[in-house]
């Protein structure tokens, strides 16, 4: 009977026989093998942004900004900090740059960077009490904070209350916003991927697997968690600040649950812990959510259904699947 049971055998392509980051390149073909998957997405995004009609260009731009949020979520999850309230960081950045521009009158080229760093610091300070929690306890607290803060703004009418702030200065043109957004998204992807591979980033990844072991190795896990939250939330704050200036207004919708769900859904569809997967997922879900926009709140149902399907049926996600197909040959044996 056993003769009939066939097994799929997976063999790494020759070039992968070396370590993960040191390659022995001996031909143009091998260089191309390594470069194509790295350059192709950048080229595709650039080409799409050049060729699509204006409406879809804007959709792509928003997808790219959401990709930054997704990568930041993915990074924080890789550090063992599963957040269900990424909207909090987004909103803090959005309100930060909004108030700098609205009340103080700073121009956009100052308010966005200041909001990125300041929003990161503020978010870190706000999340700090929860940082001693692990696993789902941390998720619970991050889920609560943005929704409660939304109520606080609604009730106390600070920062423009329910109506928010409007008349915020816009980007000088479509191309400047597209340029800033695209460069930021690609830079985030490269930066986070390099960070995670570095010795410094290794501590973050180790915290997810076993933070007691990290603590025992002489690293202060609380301090590293603070740094991870700062990096993640500063990225989200940038997205918030960018969108504030892009829409020329900021309101309570910055706290909306959509913004917490989207990064999660994108990372899970793309593949958790790969960063590129999060980027890919956002590129898939962004246009998709635009297509179902007409259905209103049904949009959230679509994300959630996709999320549920991928968590249960395809837990590895799209990117690891593609990667495996690219790096390994398979045969039945």
């Amino acid at each position: 009977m056993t003769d009939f049971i066939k097994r799929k055998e997976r063999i790494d392509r020759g070039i992968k026989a070396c370590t993960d980051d040191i390659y022995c390149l001996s031909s143009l073909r091998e260089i191309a093998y390594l470069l194509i998957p790295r350059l192709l997405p950048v080229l595709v995004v650039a080409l799409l942004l050049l060729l699509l009609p204006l409406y879809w260009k804007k959709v792509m731009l928003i997808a790219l900004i959401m990709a930054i949020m997704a990568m930041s979520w993915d990074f924080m999850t890789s550090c063992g900090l599963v957040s269900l309230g990424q909207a909090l960081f987004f909103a803090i950045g959005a309100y930060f740059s909004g108030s700098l521009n609205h009340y103080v009158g700073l121009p956009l080229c100052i308010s966005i960077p200041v909001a990125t760093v300041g929003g990161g610091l503020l978010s870190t300070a706000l999340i700090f009490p929860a940082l001693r929690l692990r696993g789902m306890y941390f998720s619970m607290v991050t889920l609560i904070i943005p929704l409660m803060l939304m109520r606080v703004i609604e009730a106390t009418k600070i920062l423009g209350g329910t109506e928010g702030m409007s008349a915020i200065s816009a980007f000088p043109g479509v191309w400047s916003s597209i340029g800033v957004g695209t460069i930021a998204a690609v830079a985030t992807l490269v930066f986070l991927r390099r960070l995670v591979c570095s010795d410094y980033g290794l501590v973050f990844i180790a915290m997810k697997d076993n933070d007691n072991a990290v603590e025992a190795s002489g690293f202060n896990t609380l301090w590293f968690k603070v740094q991870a939250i700062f990096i993640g939330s500063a990225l989200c704050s940038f997205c918030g600040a960018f969108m504030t200036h892009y829409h020329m207004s900021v309101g309570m919708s910055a706290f909306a649950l959509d913004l917490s769900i989207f990064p999660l859904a994108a990372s899970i569809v793309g593949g958790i812990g790969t960063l590129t997967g999060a980027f890919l997922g956002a590129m898939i879900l962004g246009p998709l959510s635009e297509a179902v926009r007409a259905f209103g709140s049904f949009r959230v149902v679509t994300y959630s259904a996709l999320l549920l399907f991928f968590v249960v049926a395809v837990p590895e996600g799209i990117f690891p699947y593609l990667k495996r197909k690219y790096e390994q040959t398979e045969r039945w044996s």
Partner: protein
Amino acid sequence: MPVGDEESTAMITYGLVNSVVLALIALGFSITFGISRVANFAYGGIYILSGVIGWFFLVKLGFPYPLAATVSVASAGLLGALIYRFLLQRLRGLELSEVISTFALGLIILETLRTMGVMGFDYRLPPFSRGSVEILGTYVSVQRLVIIASGAILLILLHLFVHNTKIGLAFRGVAQDDHTAFTVGINPDKISMLSLALGSMVCSVAALLILPLGTISVDAGYDILLKALAVCIVGGLESTTGIVLASFIIGYTEVFTAMYISSSLTIVVPLFCMLAILLVRPSGLFGKHKELEERI
């Protein structure tokens, strides 16, 4: 009677009602978590869904109240069991997947109900009685008294169930250590499934009791989840005593804030209670259980 006394009796009564409401909301979440370590983020969805089911049978089809309530509670229990059997059982041990899948499911339920147009004045459960009773100079509606009484009865019944029946013993066994429970012939999967069903049923009872105070709205589903989480985090997730104490603390603080500071600030109270307790005692008031291992 001086005015101050009247105010303070009003505060005591309303605080009591508010606290029992909070305890009822948090109870189902904490039962499920305490037994099977599943954080049921679909809680708000189940709450509103069972309210809608109750409303559908009671108002639309004109069933008598006990029958409609039974249908609602039973379907919530069934839903909980199905969630465990077909969703969580596959994901057991993957904490991230558990959280995300229940959260996604809750969103699906709530947002589907929103798309179907559950909102507004039509969607309201009738209270048991529209009358009100005067207690020490303040008027309290009968519905609120029913809530207090049922909350107390539910707590006692659950305590008796967990401490005096064989299934209750199995519950406690799995809560302590599911591997050991397995070796003595308790099926942890079955018990976890029952715990999810029980949690959902308690949630449904809470919905049927509390929803008549207002209309059924989807946004309340999110509020419920937030309040349940806040109470559980302050009280310590595994401890029923902690839940009751925490809901009294938050409940009375809310009422106090509403009466003496500003009613718009009530919503901030749970958030600040939670952050404060996290800074001082990350495991909550009574959550001593496995403090070092799991939470910090």
